[in-house]
């Protein structure tokens, strides 16, 4: 199993690097505007009040935290970071098992003395390690950018820690759902199409929920389960929503194992 894990992780190295640069770059680019936002906060708040409430809700800017505060502005940035993290995790999820069949290397791998359970375990752990590294870098990037651009303004670090602590679980939902879908479908031709669709689909679902109100649509979106505005406003997680995410993960992992263990591997 270690053999596969090492190979898989090696394959992730370039991707991890690209995602790290993208996420830190995004955090830096967005937070760099904070000083000018903070200075003109009154004008900005007035301007935002003129926008329809639905639009602000759709972009997660109606959480009750002023945009002029460090964390208020960070929420606005973090939603975009979440979107990147979702695409990355979904990408790995859709790809890790399907790549062997798409590139016809499954014959090679599965003719070796290794069970399918061990193949899933090794690939899953390699992806998890890749996400954990991205996660650590996101933590460092978030704190670093806030420190650089907050200009002496105070913020509640505990709330930020709670928010950042949700990343791994948030990404796990996309990773496992991606894996489950990839083993249920006969073949995934374009991983990027699937991962972007899943990430943007659930993001839009949450935006629609924000506009129409209610919670039902939110049940299906990890963006709602780990809503940054809620976390920073209340200083805690919505446990019932987190539980829904955990159920998603458990169901997806179960589906992955059950289907993959019975799956026929077709040749060219």
């Amino acid at each position, binding site marked *: 199993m270690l053999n596969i894990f090492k190979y898989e992780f090696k394959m992730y190295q370039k991707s991890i690097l690209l995602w790290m640069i993208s996420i830190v770059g995004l955090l830096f680019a967005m937070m760099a505007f904070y000083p000018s936002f903070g200075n003109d906060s009154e004008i900005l708040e007035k301007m935002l009040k003129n926008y329809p409430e639905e639009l602000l809700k759709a972009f997660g800017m109606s959480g009750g935290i002023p945009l002029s505060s460090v964390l208020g502005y960070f929420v606005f940035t973090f939603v975009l970071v979440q979107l990147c993290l979702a695409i990355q995790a979904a990408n790995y999820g859709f790809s890790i098992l399907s790549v062997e069949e798409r590139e016809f*290397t499954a014959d090679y791998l599965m003719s070796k003395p290794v069970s399918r359970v061990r193949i899933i375990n090794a690939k899953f752990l390699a992806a998890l390690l890749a996400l954990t590294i991205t996660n650590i870098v996101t933590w460092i990037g978030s704190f670093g950018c806030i420190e650089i651009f907050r200009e002496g303004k105070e913020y509640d670090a505990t709330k930020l820690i709670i928010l950042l602590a949700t990343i791994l679980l948030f990404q796990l939902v996309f990773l496992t759902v991606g894996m489950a879908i990839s083993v249920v479908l006969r073949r995934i031709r374009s991983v990027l199409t699937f991962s972007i669709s899943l990430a943007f689909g659930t993001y839009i679902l949450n935006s629609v929920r924000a506009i129409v109100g209610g919670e039902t649509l939110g049940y299906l979106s990890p963006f709602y389960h780990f809503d940054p505005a809620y976390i920073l406003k209340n200083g805690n997680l919505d446990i019932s929503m987190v539980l829904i995410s955990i159920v998603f993960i458990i169901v997806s992992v179960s589906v992955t194992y059950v289907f993959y263990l019975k799956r026929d591997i077709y040749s060219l």
Partner: protein
Amino acid sequence: MPEVFLNHANAYSRIRVYFMNMPKEGKLMNIIETNKLTKYYGKSPGIIDVSMEVKEKEIFGFIGPNGAGKSTTIRTLMGLIFPTSGKAEIFGKNCMKEGPNIRRDIGYLPSEVFYYERMKVIDLLNYTAGFFKKDCKNRMNELAEIMELDLNRRIEDLSYGNKKKVGIVQGLLHSPKLIILDEPTSGLDPLMQQKFFDIIKKENEKGTTIFFSSHILSEVQELCNRVAIIKDGSIIRTEDIKTLRENNYKKITIRGDKIDQSKFKIKGVTKIVNGKNEFKFFYKGDINKMTNAISSEKLKDVLIEEPTLEEIFMHYYK
């Protein structure tokens, strides 16, 4: 209990299991055994009731035209696809339930070879060796040398023939007890084919069982001791290679302006087709009688070929 006694007890039980698994004197054990193995792809059948036994140290040919079910049978044996019904065992173990254990002693070369494109050959071979709990380095280098394989090139830069060589080395580097080959020679030039056959023969001399699938009759005839013939998903006959050699048909085409067909009324001539200035038939028998008949005619051209498997199946294994 002192450790020394425990070690003795373990050794005793291992020796006992070894002798229990040994075949009775003179009787070779079945390395591969299938019983009514059936696989449906949706509603269309892949293989139906495939039953066969491959004995230890045998080179067993598995021959049939394209789409007959050869790869389906092999993929089921390798645990890549799951049978709809029936039983498949290798080394006396169920292929589905004990796949990883079985595959420790199998070398497999599929008909189409695909490896991780961005890897170097040496990295792929080391990766392969990592799956087996033994030192494969010497054998790996030995095979790479015989196959004239450049270990430092990337897989994506290799021609199909060279990828096939990688397939051969990665399939044999762990010195398996059973080698399963699915149309192994496609993409190899004749020189490499011969080298490959030599390797296979040497492996067999060392006691390795070979399961050789092909649609080329001549290569099966060169290598195998026994052959199973598969057509439309079912095994239609299992024959000794001697019998297959006796059925050594030739496809003969004669061209000339005035051919006296009566001269070719020799025992063993079948499936006669008359064309314009052309006379085609199959022949099985004394080749001297035939060459005498041919030389007695004034001909423009003569063609003596091996019939394709399809032709043999169409007319002799209906």
